[in-house]
């Protein structure tokens, strides 16, 4: 469907980006993205995906908005206290861009329900607050063959990866399993700007993939982007395929 005059204006700055054009905008409008977790990472990811004109967002979060969330979870505002994050997020997105269709689920994704919940989405943004869910979504997206943006944050630091099953090494290629004894944000805090950066990286990776800017690297490696707000080092580590990883069966080339 050709863009309306309003859409040409709303998305003018997208369309003007070299390599984008109206074709990229149409790809965004046709895309369905699941965002799992609507907190610190999910807030910027949802904002930028909605503003960019992604056609449909699946909004998953089991929690309600609490006062201690608001210094970083910018999708939600003070009047939303006590309301489900999924509902609050959908309303915020509707105000920003009513063209985006949203599906809300006040649901914690687990082994039993994740495959069904994510079926029908083109790409997944992992924005949960725990390692177990991050590794679960990694494994589920490998099984479903869906690209996954995954990230983590704590205090002043964070990291992000974009995984394309069979083309880019997975989370377990970088870190084989859930590490024990790592503090959580309820123990060591987190500054809102940190998930602001990492959630924005997730949105950017997803948009690159939707519009076709994303390309696998010739050597088959992936990237782990890290941000350290204490030293202000931004870094990209090279992730290689781990031959014993569960993603190895998906590799088409050695």
């Amino acid at each position, binding site marked *: 469907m050709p863009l309306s005059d309003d859409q040409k204006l709303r998305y003018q700055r997208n369309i003007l980006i070299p390599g984008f054009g109206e074709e990229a905008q149409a790809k965004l409008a046709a895309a369905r993205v699941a965002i799992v*977790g609507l*907190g*610190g*990472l*999910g807030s910027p990811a949802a904002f930028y995906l909605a503003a960019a004109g992604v056609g449909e967002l699946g909004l998953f979060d089991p929690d309600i908005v609490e006062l201690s969330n608001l210094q970083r979870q910018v999708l939600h505002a003070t009047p939303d206290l006590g309301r489900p994050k999924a509902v609050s997020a959908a309303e915020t997105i509707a105000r920003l861009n009513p063209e985006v269709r949203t599906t809300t689920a006040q649901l914690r994704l687990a082994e039993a329900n994740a495959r069904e919940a994510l079926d029908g989405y083109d790409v997944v943004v*992992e*924005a*949960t*607050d*725990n*390692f177990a869910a*991050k590794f679960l979504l990694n494994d589920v997206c490998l099984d479903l063959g869906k690209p996954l943006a995954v*990230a*983590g*944050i*704590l*205090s002043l*630091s*964070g*990291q992000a990866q974009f995984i394309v099953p069979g083309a880019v090494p997975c989370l377990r*290629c*970088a*870190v*084989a399993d*859930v*590490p*024990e*004894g*790592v503090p*959580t*944000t309820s123990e060591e805090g*987190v500054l809102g700007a940190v*998930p602001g950066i990492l959630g924005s990286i997730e949105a950017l990776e997803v948009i690159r993939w939707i519009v076709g800017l994303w390309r696998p690297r010739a050597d088959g490696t992936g990237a*782990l982007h*890290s941000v*350290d707000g204490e*030293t202000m*080092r931004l*870094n990209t*580590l*090279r*992730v*290689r395929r*781990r031959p014993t990883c569960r993603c190895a069966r998906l590799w088409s080339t050695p």
Partner: protein
Amino acid sequence: MKVVINSEERDVQDGLTVQTLLESLKLRPEATVVERNQAIVDRADYPTTRLTDGDTLELVRFVGGG
């Protein structure tokens, strides 16, 4: 010997392993991603991976909040 850790040159003991380096820096080995000369070291290999003079290391704390 000299190695570069997160862009800073450091003098370390000859033959130091990744595992003992992390311990000396008070970093939890299982929650630290180690890139050595542009390749991430498998966690299981930390105790047997010996650093050599001139190595470039990036140490990133792997975190799980959201």
